[in-house]
């Protein structure tokens, strides 16, 4: 997996909380080797954590259009 350095902190946090269920080896601060069947799950957990940290709400109101709507 490749990502920006801040994401690494989140991945490490999730992995630590899950007793090392995801990461096989950390290569550098942008790359790590994860279990193949856990990659999608890890991505989803990072996304949830990041949205929570940034205060993004899942359901956003769709842009209304003065002509179409």
């Amino acid at each position: 997996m490749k990502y920006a350095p801040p994401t690494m902190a989140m991945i490490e946090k999730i992995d630590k909380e899950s007793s090392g269920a995801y990461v096989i080896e950390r290569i550098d601060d942008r790359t790590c080797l994860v279990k193949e069947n856990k990659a999608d799950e890890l991505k989803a957990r990072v996304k949830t954590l990041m949205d929570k940290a940034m205060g993004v709400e899942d359901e956003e109101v769709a842009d209304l259009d003065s002509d179409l709507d």
Partner: protein
Amino acid sequence: MTDSLQSWDYLEGLQGVELQKLYKSPPSALAIFRKLLSGLSKHFVMSMLYCPRPTPLTEFELMVKASRAKDRQMALDQLRRYHIVRETTLKSGKALSLVPDFARSLRRVLGGGGSGYTFGQVFSPPASQAVSVDDLDDYARQQWEGILGYMVGSSNLAELQQPGEELAPPSSSVIELLKAGSLVTVQGTVSRGQIPTITKDGFAFVLKDVSTQIWALLFLYVDNCDAFDMEKIEVLSFIFFVASLELGLAYSISTLTTKEKQMLQDLLGLGIIYQPDSNATFFYPTRLATTLTSSSTSAITTASQTLGSSLQPNSDLSAAHNTSPHQTPGSGFIIIETNFRLYAYTSSSLQIALLSLFIALRSRHPNMVTGKMTKQSVQRAIQVGITAEQIISYLSTHAHPQMKRYAAAELARNQARQIAINASSAGPNAEGATNAMLHLKVIPDTIMDQISLWQMERDRITSNAGFLLKDFTTNSEYQDVCRYADETGVLIWSDDKRRVFFVTRVEGVQSFIKERRVREQARMAF
């Protein structure tokens, strides 16, 4: 996104023994030769086909320019991967020869001989049951649209559908196949009604061309053949047999085995085969079958256009908005404005359902639907696996001729402006700037950038499935192996400082490491 749809690479996963069994069938050997091998690999095969003795590796080096050594290596690796060649050691060095079953089958295809029914027994049906090629195309299209419509959930767009537009649902065996391939998930019960939901892989599937789609489903069928008490190789051989038949001709089922007759019924549901009724003693291959193993781009394009034509907008209706005399029906129907409003001149339920995957549809008119691309609608699609590139590619491919004309005029204006600038200040930088502006951009930059930004916002991590190689004893070993991985196209990422790299396939690299170590040991001993 990792593309988990089965493709021809599926055959790489078969064991050598299984492939040898497959090569016993001439249609299978022909299909693999035509569809799978690169031009250079084909050339190597033909050079060995009628050669009684193994060909020394040095001869392959002479066949290809030194500057194209990488291509030669890739072609030979491909032949090894599919167990088409085997290596022997001669006094003069290593040599390659074709495996006997493959060579025998390919020679039989080229020169004739063997069983009279290798490529089926042509049947003359009674005039009342004869079917034209147009009818076969209609049948195949209906079957295929039914499958795609079921996947994208066209039935869930009832409020946007008009009477008589409902697509015929696929057979239960096809639905089981879609579920087995994780292309859809189905909720509910048979008695109370089932609602299909398209998955990430399903999204990728519906946006592929017809040929890729049909093969993905066929490889799924092969993968699940155990459930029908059949062997993979039997199924693959039969598919390649069907693919070798001629469009418009009827074939007798009397030469087929019981299992093959059973497979024939399964292929009916996919629209690959047509039978007037279940008791008929003959069948017709449709265009979906006859282009399965075609290596001709024009044949595949014709099939996609013929069978995919109703995936395009209603030609009669779109013609009303077609101002170009050279415009072919169904060549484009989407207009998207820089304010993210979208107008699609189509009445196809399937197209509308596809658009609804990433567009918030607002209204439907007799020949058009309107909608708006929003952050929510795009991110909803991205969440289930569709990529920004796929959305942009779909919009560009189906852009209305008006958008294409506007883009062409804009390009011409930019070119004229650049020529004028170059004339006044000629220089290398001006040339570079000209090239950067010479791309035809059908979709406005604002739209393309925003879709990509919406994706980047969600997709902060990239992942690749593969193997990490590390702990190389020397730097030269690392450099050699890494270079080999790069030349054979399997290298994804490397870190020279740490002497680690990541590859998508490891078999070739492992062999290279072993051979290299043997060479090094021999050199040291010497």
